[in-house]
C-alpha cells in the first residue's frame, strides 16, 4: 500500500501540473480538495482520467468520486480493491 501511495503522489503531481509541490509535501491523509492541495473541478476530472488510463479503473457513478478522491490514501485503497 505504501508503495502505491508514493507512486500515486508522483502521478498526481505530474497529471495535475503541481509544479511547486513534491511528493513529500503531500500528506496521504489530507483532503485533496478544499484546504489540502486546493484542487478544483477540472482536477477532479483529471483524476478520473488518471484512474482509467493508469489503472484501467472506470468510475461508473460520479457520486463515488467524493469518497474515492478524498485523499491519496482513499485513492490507493480504491485502486487496490478495483485494479484489474
Amino acid at each position, binding site marked *: 500500500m505504501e508503495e502505491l501511495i508514493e507512486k500515486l503522489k508522483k502521478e498526481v503531481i505530474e497529471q495535475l501540473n503541481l509544479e511547486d509541490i513534491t511528493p513529500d509535501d503531500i500528506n496521504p491523509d489530507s483532503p485533496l480538495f478544499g484546504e489540502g492541495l486546493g484542487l478544483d473541478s477540472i482536477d477532479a476530472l483529471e483524476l478520473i*482520467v488518471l484512474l482509467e*488510463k493508469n489503472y484501467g479503473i472506470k468510475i461508473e457513478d460520479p457520486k463515488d468520486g467524493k469518497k474515492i478522491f478524498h485523499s491519496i490514501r482513499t485513492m490507493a485503497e480504491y485502486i487496490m480493491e478495483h485494479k484489474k
Partner: protein
Amino acid sequence: MDATLRSYIRKIKMDQIITTYCHLHDNRVIVNDRLIFYQENIVKFADLLKSVYKQEQITYPKFYKMDILSKLGFIAAELVLKDNKLEGYLPEDVGVVMSNSSSSLDTDIAHNETIRDRSSYFPSPSVFVYTLPNIVIGEVCIRHKIKGENAFLISETFSSNLLFSYVNELFANGRVKACLCGWVEVMGNTSDAMVALVENTGRDLQASVTGFKPLQFNVDNLNLIMTRN
C-alpha cells in the same frame, strides 16, 4: 442637441493613451521600452514563460495548469498591470481586447493528440478547457478581477487598425474607462505577445515614474510597440 452631435462631441473629447505596454518576443521581454528579461538558448517557449514567472516572483499556482497561450497572455498582463495599475477603476469599467492569428489551434492540436487513437482515447479535461482563444482573457480577468467588456479578435497578421478601432469604439461609447489590449499569438515554435494598457488622459498617471512617456493610443503607436525589441 441631436444624438449624432452628442456622440461626435463625446468622441472628440476622448483622448486615450498607452500608459504601459509589454512585448514578449524572441527570448526577450520589454516593458515600457526597457528590457527586463533576456535568456539565450531557451528551447521551449514554456520554459521562458516559467523563467519570467519566477524572476517576477509571481505566486499563482494556477499558472502551471494553463496552456501556452494563456500563460503568455497571463505573464504579459501581469507585467503590464504590476503595482496595482487598475486601482481606482471599477471592475466593470475595465475591458480586455486581445487578438491573434492562430486562435487556440496550438492547444486544439494537443487535444486532438489525446483523442486521435481510439484504442488510447483519454481526452484531458485540463487541455480541453483551453480549446478556445478567449480563455486567456478569462484567466486575466479572474486574476485581476476585471468584469468589463471583452473580445478576442482573429486576423491573419497583427492588425493595429482592427485593434485600435474596436478599443477606440469601446472608449467612445463609454463602455470602458481602461482597456487591456493586444496581440497574443502561439503556434508551434512561433510565439509573440504585445499587451498594452490604454487609459483616458484625465487620470493621474504613474507611468512617468519609470521614465516611460505614455504614448498616444493610435494605430502608429500600436505598430511601434509591436516592433520594439
